[in-house]
């Protein structure tokens, strides 16, 4: 069976409400995981709402280690940039369109720790470099905050495909 993985998103005040089954994961001009991005587009010169996501492990495993997050590109078009950070502290900023101040998202991998909790708000924590074994309490990766930032030169329309990837080692 091994581990199974899903992605959770944090919305609302301090990103404290977990959505486990997202209908819409795109960057957009609203803080939720349901509204179609086409209904809440980002206008050139503005930013998306910051988005908090974390990988969540279920299934069976002996140990987890070496977790990283990365994006396929941090410059998906003219006037577009993706910034990101792994959130290590409690009570993160509530999602807004204000620039997060994060650096360009890594395309090679940013290290993250594992957090052992059944409470989503506790995912915003220092965590530990290794996790497991599986038990009745969930294992998450630390939350990964991303934001699509634009300049006035951004072209209208959909952006090209961007992927967010988590990699880890598991025994």
């Amino acid at each position: 069976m091994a581990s199974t993985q899903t992605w959770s998103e944090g919305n609302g005040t301090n990103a404290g409400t977990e959505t486990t089954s997202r209908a819409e994961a795109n960057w957009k001009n609203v803080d939720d995981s349901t509204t179609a991005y086409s209904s809440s587009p980002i206008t050139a010169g503005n930013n998306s709402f910051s988005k908090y996501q974390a990988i969540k492990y279920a299934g069976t495993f002996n140990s987890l280690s070496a977790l990283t997050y990365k994006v396929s590109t941090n410059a998906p078009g003219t006037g577009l940039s993706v910034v990101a950070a792994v959130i290590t502290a409690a009570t993160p900023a509530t999602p807004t369109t204000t620039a997060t101040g994060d650096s360009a998202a890594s395309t090679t991998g940013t290290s993250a720790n594992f957090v052992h909790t059944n409470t989503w708000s506790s995912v915003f924590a220092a965590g530990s470099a290794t996790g497991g074994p599986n038990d009745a309490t969930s294992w998450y990766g630390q939350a990964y905050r991303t934001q699509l930032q634009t300049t006035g030169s951004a072209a209208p329309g959909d952006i090209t495909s961007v992927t967010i990837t988590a990699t880890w080692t598991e025994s």
Partner: protein
Amino acid sequence: MVVPRDSSVEAEYADGYVHSELELGDVPQFGQGNVLTDILSGKLEKEHGRMVRFSCFWKLKRHDVDWTKLPKNARPIRFRHGVSVQDVVTGETWSGWAGVDFGAQWNDRLGRSKKAIRELR
């Protein structure tokens, strides 16, 4: 025919018993973790004798370590390299294994750590 799932492991013991991740659905028989946790615990050796083979499946092939040729302090190693990808635009997600490192670790007579690892990709 049961097709071995990539990166799953099994161990065979002196009395012929095979502890198979695939057959057990990776459900551990001795508490938390998985079938590898069972094998690492050494508890199966009390009932079935010394482990004689440790195997890992990858791309429809079984890779074996002859455990009878290793020191008694040898420990099995199986590290899966996991990948989970989400497409931000389409919302599609998929997960899989990029590879698996498989083999054994032991200490020699001078206490030095030794490894024999195969990087299956």
